[in-house]
């Protein structure tokens, strides 16, 4: 060979400096040899060296080039080595898991639960809080807030006066009747300004958007269909464009279809976007001004920020515009409306108040994940103890500790990867189980989907989880003397003091985590129950609501009154109906009419608008049907003829206007000009939210006010839903073109609490999951610890300790960590309830019942776990225990 090989271990570990040194050495060797050769030929050393250097060429340049290429090669080699190692580790891990299917199943299942829960909630957080709105213009979409009703003229004027908004559109939700091409149906449509499509950046898939000149009654008889309406009702026939269809409402009986929106388009600011069936233009007669426009149903105004425009500049402009209107038209706009008006990003205004609760939910779910990791850490700790011999063998074959730890971490990573995959599937199931998409009341819930970011989150969580649950066990399993003879003692050596301390810490941690979660869930549940128990002001059990919409064009003048009078008669005659009455707006839905008024004995406020109260139209029998108490005077009856001026007010209004006095007989001028006399006072109804004080309300009888929609209430003794078909049939009998929608009133009330109920049931689910995980974990740690102490118990008993003493020792050693855990858990629970205070209603945050119950469960579990094996031990012979270990 000509040379002796030099062994250089850790070739792959050379640093840049090492590489440079090697190259130097190689070059130096060459130069030295050439110098010596020249010297052998008679040259002086210096001259020889110089000659050698000249012959060599540019040594420094060569050094640089060679260093670079060597470093590059080293990097590639290292990478390949590392990849090889990884592949080997993974194969090893998979093999060892296949040998222990029980352990693997439990481990993966635990991880899947933890990761799945975290991913499920993150999907919701992602959809509602993180993902941009599904419109091309989402970055510049804003809303004029707060959402107070404008009229069309005002919304247009505000839009025109804000150059920071490139386009703006009012929005209003309408229910209109569609006939022809199928059953008569009441569908929800959205009335929008002509700029709406520009604001959202979406054009109709077929046909065209509204034109600027289609905003007056003469020209606004057009309609754009939603994709699903077009496919289900019109068979996706493109020839529907240009047809006139019968859709009653908004001053038109039929309209021309001019377009179809793209599939999946979900309009903003609607609770159920997939239920919006069509769009019509907001239509105002020419010449109407803000003062003469009575179309106060524009619920929201959305806009598109112009290039260079910002929410701040737009806000200033809107305030200026509103202030200007106030100056010109006085009492139409309140001063606080001007002050509070603002332009906010649309997503913020849609999502706003759910942010805190969603983040809290995410935090809760992370706790569940930590519990799962704690369980897994315990499993791996025990497994590490079992594998001491195997690890010793590997160490003897040349594995360094770092290498072994890396192998064990790789095993953890394989478990985490399996857990993450299963967790993603589980998350999907969880989301359906919790009914997020359809029954959570969350904004944007319809958009729920697992996208790339969710998968990325799952991967990240799995990676962090590996560190959480695998690192400590890996370090512990490879610690100390791994020599085969030492490890072959077989007995779980792991019960050193340090090991016992880890077990205790794990127990305390699991107990604390589980308690915190369970406490939060319990309190939230309790608050929902309490909220439900609040008296809404009327009895909803046994009441069916029937929403009847008369086509306004046909029912003018007295005809609505006649219709509803007949309807009352016929409905009252149905078997099982105890009472009938009607009101023109369904309670608990947020639908509201608010009118200003002037009250007797009260001077009109100077420089401020008139006070306003909720306004309702009711028929005789309404208050009795929904069991609203009559506190003074009477309710409506046959004496309220058409030219009368009867008024019923609620207690809040009576107390506010004439505290301590009799309100009956007093006069109130609606709008400041229309006189009415109070004939009775009824109880309050929590119209908007059960945990807010009721607002002043006034009622006028249908006989003295013209409306074409009424919600008829029927009271029955059994399930009100059984009456639905019969009631609808009665309406059809009187007029087959009139649609009627029936709902149990109790359901309507429940719906108003949907979001709160969603949070309660979700947190409950996770609380129970935490309790289960915590119990399993605590049981596992405890029984393992106790089993490991059996030799000690055997010795004690051999030395004369009684069974009771041994059991006592065992139990006592269990109680300390549990006690610590309970203490920490209580602190955690207290902290959580502070957070929950915004959601809690009627529940004192320091309510101890739920906490005590959960602590009891966990303590019981851990006592059982430390009792049972100890009991078995005391029954067996001490010598056998010592022998068998």
């Amino acid at each position, binding site marked *: 060979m*000509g*040379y*002796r090989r*030099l062994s*250089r271990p850790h070739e792959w570990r050379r640093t840049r400096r090492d590489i440079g040194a090697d190259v130097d050495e*190689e070059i130096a060797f060459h130069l030295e040899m050439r110098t010596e050769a020249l010297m052998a030929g008679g040259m002086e050393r210096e001259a020889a060296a110089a000659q050698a250097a000249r012959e060599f*060429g540019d040594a420094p340049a060569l050094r640089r080039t060679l260093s670079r290429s060597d470093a590059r090669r080293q990097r590639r080699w290292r990478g390949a080595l590392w990849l090889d190692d990884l592949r080997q580790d993974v194969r090893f891990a998979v093999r060892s898991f296949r040998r222990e299917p029980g352990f693997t199943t439990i481990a993966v299942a635990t991880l899947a639960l933890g990761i799945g829960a975290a991913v499920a909630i993150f999907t919701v957080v992602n959809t509602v809080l993180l993902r941009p709105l599904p419109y091309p213009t989402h970055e510049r979409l804003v809303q004029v807030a707060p959402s107070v009703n404008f009229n069309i003229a005002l919304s247009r004027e505000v839009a025109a006066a804000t150059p920071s908004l490139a386009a703006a559109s009012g929005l209003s939700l309408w229910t209109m009747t569609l006939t022809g091409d199928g059953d008569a149906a009441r569908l929800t449509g959205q009335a929008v300004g002509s700029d709406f499509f520009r604001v959202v950046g979406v054009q109709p898939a077929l046909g065209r958007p509204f034109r600027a000149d289609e905003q007056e009654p003469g020209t606004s008889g057009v309609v754009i269909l939603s994709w699903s309406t077009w496919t289900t009702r019109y068979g996706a026939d493109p020839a529907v464009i240009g047809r006139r269809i019968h859709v009653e409402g908004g001053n038109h009986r039929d309209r021309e279809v001019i377009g179809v929106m793209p599939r999946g388009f979900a309009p903003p600011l609607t609770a159920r976007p997939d239920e919006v069936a069509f769009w019509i233009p907001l239509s105002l007669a020419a010449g109407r001004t803000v003062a003469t426009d009575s179309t106060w149903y524009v619920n929201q105004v959305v806009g598109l920020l112009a290039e260079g425009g910002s929410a701040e500049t737009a806000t200033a402009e809107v305030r200026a515009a509103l202030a200007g209107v106030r100056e010109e038209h006085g009492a139409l706009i309140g001063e606080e409306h001007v002050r509070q008006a603002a332009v906010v990003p649309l997503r913020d205004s849609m999502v706003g108040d759910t942010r805190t609760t969603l983040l809290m939910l995410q935090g809760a779910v992370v706790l569940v994940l930590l519990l799962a990791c704690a369980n897994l850490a315990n499993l791996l700790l025990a497994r590490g103890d079992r594998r001491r011999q195997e690890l010793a063998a590997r160490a003897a074959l040349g594995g360094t500790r770092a290498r072994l730890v890396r192998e064990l971490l790789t095993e953890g990573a394989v478990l985490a990867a399996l857990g993450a995959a299963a967790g993603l599937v589980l998350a999907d199931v969880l989301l359906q189980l919790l009914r997020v998409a359809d029954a959570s009341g969350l904004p944007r819930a319809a958009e729920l989907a697992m996208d790339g970011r969710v998968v990325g989150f799952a991967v990240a969580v799995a990676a962090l989880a590996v560190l959480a649950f695998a690192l400590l066990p890996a370090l512990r399993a490879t610690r100390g003397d791994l020599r085969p003879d030492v490890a072959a003692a077989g007995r779980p050596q792991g019960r050193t003091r340090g090991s016992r301390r880890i077990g205790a810490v794990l127990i305390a941690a699991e107990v604390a985590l589980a308690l915190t979660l369970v406490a939060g869930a319990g309190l939230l549940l309790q608050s929902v129950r309490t909220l439900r128990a609040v008296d809404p002001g009327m009895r909803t059990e046994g009441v069916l609501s029937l929403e009847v919409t008369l086509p306004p064009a046909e029912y003018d003048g007295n005809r609505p009154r006649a219709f509803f009078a007949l309807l009352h008669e016929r409905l009252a005659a149905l078997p099982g109906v105890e009472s009938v009455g009607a009101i023109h707006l369904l309670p608990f839905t947020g639908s509201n009419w608010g009118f200003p008024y002037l009250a007797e004995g009260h001077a009109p406020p100077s420089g401020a608008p008139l006070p306003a109260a909720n306004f309702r139209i009711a028929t005789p029998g309404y208050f009795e049907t929904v069991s609203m108490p009559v506190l003074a005077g009477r309710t409506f009856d046959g004496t309220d003829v058409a030219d009368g001026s009867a008024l019923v007010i609620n207690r809040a209004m009576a107390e506010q206007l004439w505290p301590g006095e009799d309100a009956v007989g007093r006069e109130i001028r609606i709008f400041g000009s229309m006189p009415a006399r109070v004939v009775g006072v009824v109880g309050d109804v929590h119209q908007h939210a059960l945990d807010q004080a009721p607002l002043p309300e006034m009622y006028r009888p249908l006989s003295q006010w013209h409306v074409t929609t009424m919600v008829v209430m029927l009271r029955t003794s059994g399930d009100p839903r059984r009456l639905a078909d019969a009631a609808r049939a009665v309406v059809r009998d009187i007029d087959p073109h009139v649609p009627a929608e029936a709902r149990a009133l109790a359901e309507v009330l429940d719906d108003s609490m949907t979001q709160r109920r969603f949070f309660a049931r979700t947190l409950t689910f996770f609380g129970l999951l935490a309790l289960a995980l915590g119990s399993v974990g605590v049981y596992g740690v405890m029984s393992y610890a106790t089993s490991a102490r059996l030799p000690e118990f055997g010795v004690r008993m051999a030395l004369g300790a009684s069974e009771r003493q041994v059991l006592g020792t065992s139990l006592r050693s269990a109680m300390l960590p549990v006690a610590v855990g309970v203490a920490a858990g209580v602190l955690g629970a207290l902290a959580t309830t502070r957070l929950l205070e915004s959601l809690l209603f009627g529940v004192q945050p320091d309510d101890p019942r739920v906490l005590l119950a959960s602590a009891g469960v966990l303590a019981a579990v851990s006592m059982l776990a430390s009792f049972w094996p100890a009991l078995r031990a005391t029954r067996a012979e001490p010598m056998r225990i010592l022998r068998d270990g």
Partner: protein
Amino acid sequence: MTDSMDLIRGTVDMLILRALAEEALHGYGVSQWIRGRTAGTLELQDAALYQALRRLEERRLVSAEWGVSENNRRARYYTLTRAGRKRLASEAAAWSRYAAAVSQVLTPLGQEG
């Protein structure tokens, strides 16, 4: 011109492979071998030689490891790999054909001269 550079590089590589065909050598040894065999006609700049050695290493035609020379100095020794041996054989054959062809073209001149 690129062609001639490649040609030159190819030739250098072939010489190095040939040098290593009999025994493993360090860089200086290769340089000596080439000088010796060509009786000084072909002198390779040593810097270029080392670059060529690295190139061949990268293409796995030679492998290198550190060793101790006869005079007890540390040196990096280069060995021909099996792939290198095969390449040498095919390059040598190609070169012979090429040289023969050029000879064919040029020889009439010489003979006449």
